[in-house]
């Protein structure tokens, strides 16, 4: 009489291994982010100026100024290289086009909480060389009693292109609305567009050169993203951009059902739903007069 040996063969080990191997990658946990002490980690230096007492530098993710929304961080260091977190900074960019000068929509330079870092954005209306214009700014700082200024610093604002590197991309738009006012609408996010749900943010400024006051609230940007290369199909469940008081920006959701070239068609409406600028897409009208381009 034989006994039945049920589990002596080790047959199950490779099986379990196989099943684990197939499934293990599903269960990966994202690694916790390391807390860094370097305030400019991950940022590239755009330029840097020094006087007898301090060094002021401008930074951002790409290391350059670019047409449209450009985020810039500043640092102030003393002679020992120590980062100062109690400085006050000011910069006023201007474009000199020979016959005229103009500035651009921008924010004040404010302190980044928790870091010896200062931030601002500039929504450049034009790139350097466009209409033979030259961009420059006066960059001034105050640290306690010390103060300094770097004047007429030329800044090189690059043109913005689609991924092919040669076709300009629409990411900022100036227009006269139905109320006869001049507006500037600037696309901010998605900075890193991806398939699926994306945050979309934008600034609306009124153009009263030399000032460009931010229009905070009381507008809506209706959103209709389209893919012109695919018979102008849309995507589902997009959310129009409305004022987010906490972040001081217009915020919505844009969904990309695939990678590629997307036209984000917009209609600027006031509180009562009056169309200030832009148009709906209907048969025969493939785009709004107000649109931005995203390609990835």
């Amino acid at each position, binding site marked *: 009489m034989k006994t*039945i040996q049920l589990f002596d063969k080790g047959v199950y080990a490779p099986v379990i291994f196989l099943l684990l191997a197939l499934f293990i990658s*599903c269960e990966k946990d994202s690694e916790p982010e390391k807390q860094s002490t370097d305030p400019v980690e991950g940022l590239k230096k755009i330029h840097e100026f020094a006087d007898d007492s301090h060094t002021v530098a401008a930074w951002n993710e790409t290391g350059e100024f670019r047409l449209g929304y450009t985020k810039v961080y500043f640092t102030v260091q003393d002679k020992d290289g120590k980062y100062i977190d109690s400085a006050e900074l000011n910069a006023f960019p201007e474009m000199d086009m020979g016959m005229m000068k103009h500035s651009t929509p921008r924010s004040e330079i404010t302190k980044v909480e928790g870091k010896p870092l200062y931030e601002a954005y500039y929504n450049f209306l034009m790139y350097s060389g466009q209409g033979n214009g030259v961009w420059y700014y006066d960059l001034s700082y105050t640290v306690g009693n010390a103060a300094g200024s770097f004047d007429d610093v030329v800044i090189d604002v690059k043109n913005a292109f689609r991924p092919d590197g040669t076709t300009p991309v629409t990411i900022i738009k100036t227009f006269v609305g139905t109320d006869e006012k001049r507006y500037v609408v600037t696309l901010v996010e998605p900075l890193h567009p991806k398939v*699926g749900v994306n945050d979309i943010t934008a600034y609306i400024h009124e153009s009263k050169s030399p000032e460009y006051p931010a229009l905070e609230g009381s507008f809506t940007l209706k959103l209709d993203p389209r893919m012109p290369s*695919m018979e102008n199909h849309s995507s589902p*469940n997009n959310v129009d951009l409305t004022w987010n008081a906490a972040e001081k920006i217009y915020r919505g959701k844009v969904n990309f059902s695939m990678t590629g070239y997307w036209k984000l068609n917009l209609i600027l409406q006031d509180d009562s739903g009056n169309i200030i600028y832009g148009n709906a897409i209907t048969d025969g009208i493939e785009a709004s007069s107000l649109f931005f381009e995203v390609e990835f």
Partner: protein
Amino acid sequence: MKNKQNAMIHKVSSLTRMLHLAFMLAVPPLYAQPQDTTKTVELNEIIISAKTGIHRDRQAKPNASVEEYLQTDGKVGMVKRGAYAWEPSINNMTTERISITIDGMKIFHACTDRMDPVTSYVETVNLSKVSLGSGFEANPNATNNIGGSLDLHLNRSGFCGDGFSANANSGYESNGNLWIYGADIAYANERFYLNSGYFHRNSGNYRAGGGETVRFSQFTKNNVFTNLGIVLKTGHELEGSVIYDRAADVGYPALAMDVATADGLITSLSYTRLFAGMALTKWETKVYYNNIVHIMDDTKRPPEEIVMHMDMPGESRTAGFYSTLSGNAGRHRFSLNWDGYANRSYAEMTMYPADPNEKTMFMLTWGDIRTLNTGLFFVDEYQFNHNHSLRLSAKGSFQRDGVNDKKYGWNTLQMFYPEMKQYKNRFTGNASARYRFRKDSWEANANAGYGSRAPSGSESYGYYLYNTFDAYYYLGNPNLKHESAIETGLSFAWKPGALELKAEASHFYFTGYIIGKIDPSLKNNGLHMNFGEEGVKVYQNIPHASLLNTSLLLKYRFLNFYTLNGKATYARGRDNESASLPLIAPFGYDVSLRFAGNRFVAEAGIAGAARQTDFNPEYGEDETKAYTVINLSAGYSFRVKKTVVNLNAGVENLFDTYYSTYADWKNIPRRGRNVFVNLKFNY
């Protein structure tokens, strides 16, 4: 001596083999089957490869494709999108509702557009037979099946003292200029076997009845396989198999794209323990792995017919195991099976815009869908006495599935389902009972079952799946609930001597039937691609649906050499609004007269279907006309020294009738008149 005894036990009492003892539709058995009451007819069997040597049972068209063999069974249908890779249905249910395994191995197609049912990755030469389970009375390894199961049995030499043997065969079919070549060799003794072979099929475009060429219906297929078995010591068997199958340049006239290559690698290793003189007779454990890579291709189509060039590769990988314990105790015959598998299904779509400077459009239509499934199956057959028997079976399965790719998979689905979790756990199962009564020449069966299935990967997580049949894009729905069904069946058979009559009916009542329904919000709101398609359908559970399958079979043997076979089938499927379910066969019939002498066989058949009146335009169906086709075939065998030569020839669709059936995708016509010749050498 002991060795021999074990071999006997192996042959006679292994449950699985007995389960497949058969009623053969394709081939009438020459000699009466032993009326051993302990043997029960469990699952239908379809004999795939013709027996070697001079034998009256050999088939008139031995080089037929796997699909051609399968559709000889009344319960099996074939959905056709071209000349190659037909999609099997059982009880009028296709891929999602049936389970197809190869020697118990799970294998899943890699094409989002159903171009590659898994039966397309094997060849006739790989297989010996197919076990067909109807409804919940399925193969032990079947999972998520409602309609039934197919288990394709590999053609292993087995441990027998046959020594060395070789086969070579070739065939030609006039319609489409189809060439077939194959060769296989085998060596077997009682402790070792090895068989290996190669098979090749190559066809140009076929012609429909009347002579019109069906463009993009060509295909080429190559298949190699090796099976190996070793008796480690008496009662301990180790068996392995490898199949590599590659189809290339396959046209799909009913679809917008063709296939550049479809590769299947199917491997397994099994260990079988045979027990002598005990209640347990056999314990088989297998591990397996298969990998399917499917590359679609639109570059062979005329540019003016292509809206946009696309790349659509897909891949499906499955690893798994099963362990089956079989035995007899008193009047019980039982089997216990534990199985598990993990599958990943991945499919891309890259679209090339007209402007070459523009970025390509990319998405995952299967976002690395993962399925982990494990189940326990039990079946027991109890023979009360000579007349009564009862079969009980049950299976419970746990399944975890989800979309592993976050970037292109989960993220995209979250546009539609913001609350969607990445993975889901599910429990499914089924239970069924069959009571059988046999007396004199009468046999009656009554069966009932209840079970559920998890939604398929496409149904849960499919993204932008274009269905050319109804011209809708399909979107998966991760919130789908299980589809469940109650199955009831009755059959009566009367076999007085040379006559056999059998009437059978099965009914399925579904709750939560899963089907794509139009979602108008998505048309306005934009999943819609606007390429002339109708809109978007989303898979949903409709409250209920029903499906009735009926068949009548007749077999009459007369004058020693003649057999008359008749088969009529009718089915009806309805959704909750009493509208027809898609792809349900109308009334169909098949009558053949066969002469089988010692060396000569001949067969004349007439097959057809009535007009399809129950169709549903909502699913892209239209009325299909009635048709009748006539087929003739003959075969002759002779011996030249030690070599047996089989010569077969025939005509299909004798009158070159132009027709298409309810299951022909977009009404593509079937083959017109086709003359075939097969030549086979057995050594």
